[in-house]
């Protein structure tokens, strides 16, 4: 296997006396679709926050694209190619839908070395992204006018606008209907086909099974399984954590 895109080694994070993450090791190869599951409070979001730099891990390292990113701030990691969507959508409420996408274009894409987008290219890129997620007719609306599913799409589109190498979608389908879930899974698979590595954090097993090529299971801050979806869900330890014995 060539060196992985994302490599987490021995990562631990504690909040006071509570150990949220305990020596996590994982690797994600370029172009992979990985599902990250675990019961509530198992440390999934904390792991995402440590990978993205929102939280600082006490021990262990995060390597991305061959570079140790532990000391980098969140926006620096975003510029290197790690993008995320938030569990609860966090749109920029005073900016329009198109304005929300403009932010990562201006601050991430244009901040990278090379060609900076001109104003017309910016507009075109916003329109293209909105088209991709199906929000083209809402471009001039404020986020408060959007429905839940549209809000989640905006969240994904904003993460996508940063042209990431790795996209981490944190529970982007919670509370959505059956068909809306299919909608988002389809969107994520389309993005993956464009060459983006995706880590999907999700409780909806149907979506996880449909999406993932590999599943990683966290339980109380420890990784207890990592492998092909079919094997992982038959694993007795995973069963115990989810269903109880």
């Amino acid at each position, binding site marked *: 296997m060539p060196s992985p895109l994302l490599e987490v080694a021995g990562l631990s994070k504690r909040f006071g006396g509570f150990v949220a993450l305990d020596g996590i090791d994982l690797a994600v190869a370029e172009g992979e679709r990985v599902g990250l599951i675990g019961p509530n409070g198992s440390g999934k979001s904390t792991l995402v926050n440590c990978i993205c730099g929102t939280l600082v891990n006490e021990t262990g390292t995060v390597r991305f694209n061959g570079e140790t990113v532990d000391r980098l701030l969140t926006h620096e990691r975003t510029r290197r190619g790690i*993008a995320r969507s938030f569990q609860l959508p966090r749109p920029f409420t005073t900016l329009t839908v198109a304005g929300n996408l403009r932010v990562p274009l*201006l*601050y991430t894409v244009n901040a990278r070395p090379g060609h900076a987008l001109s104003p017309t290219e910016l507009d075109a890129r916003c329109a293209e992204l909105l088209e991709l997620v199906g929000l083209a007719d809402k471009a001039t609306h404020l986020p408060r006018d959007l429905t839940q599913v549209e809000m989640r799409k905006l969240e994904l589109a904003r993460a996508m606008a940063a042209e990431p190498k790795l996209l981490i979608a944190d529970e982007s389908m919670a509370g959505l209907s059956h068909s809306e879930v299919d909608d988002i899974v389809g969107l994520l698979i389309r993005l993956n086909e464009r060459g983006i590595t995706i880590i999907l954090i999700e409780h909806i097993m149907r979506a996880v099974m449909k999406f993932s090529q590999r599943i990683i299971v966290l339980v109380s801050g420890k990784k207890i399984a990592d492998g092909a979806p079919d094997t992982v869900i038959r694993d007795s330890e995973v069963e115990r954590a989810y269903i109880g014995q």
Partner: protein
Amino acid sequence: MRTPVFFLISIAVAAVVFFAARLVSNDYVFFAGYTVLQFVVLATAWNILGGYTGYVNFGSAAFFALGAYATVFLHKLYPLPIPLLIVTGGIVSGVVGFGMGYLTLRLRGAFFAIATLALAVVLQTLVVNWDYVGGSRGAYIIRPNEIALVGPYIQYLFLLMLALTVFALTIARGIERSQLGYGFATIRDDELAAEASGVPTLRLKLIATTLSGALMGMAGAPFPYYIGYLQPSSAFGLEYAVNSIAMPMIGGTTSWVGPLIGAILLGSLQQIATVTISSAVNLLIVGLLLVAFVIIAPNGIVGLVQGWTRGRAK
């Protein structure tokens, strides 16, 4: 409209204002107008930090006073022309703004506001105990009666403040339409999401505190020449802190027009109240209006107007 065009138009408007004021053959117009303009600059400066990035600064008076005391200090060393003093006042307050930003910007909301208030108290204590600039006694600045080209000195001060107003408004409007404006808005809306979108929030906040502080200092620099006798309690006056918050809030904080409208409206009202009722009524008016606006129109006059036009469009 592009920024250079806006700049030229506002210069034209400023010229009209100046010559219209000259038509009134009464210097009081300039005295009152200077104060109103000074509040336009202060309100605009406050809004760059408080309105655009959402960090409420209660210490405006400190930055204003720093500009004023920089002038007193330099005046004692060697009298310089006022435009130069404005620049130095801006630099001094800008540096302090940067320092304040660096020390406090990991604080949010009420904690940041309290820290700025503390800064004002600390600086006032320092100035009160600094004999060279007059200490608690205050300092006199004798200004000439006349100045070449313009005529009466108060008209010259008015003209300078007018220029500063144009400068501040152009900067504020330029920020709004630039990449910086987008970055500031994301800080106001959601800092975590801003970082995740690649916005270097800490750096942008430092830019905002520096710019905002510098403009306040610039507004304060000519003040000793205007007032003639500067004492700590007048430079650090409550009215500066309160007005520079209230004016943008009443006008509307999301655009450069808000502080302009708010400052002209409140500033003029205060001037009228000072002459007709008493100078003590000033802050009462501000307080009442602020309460009314926070309840009835939380987005200020600009927000009200936008609400109406949007309602009609639908």
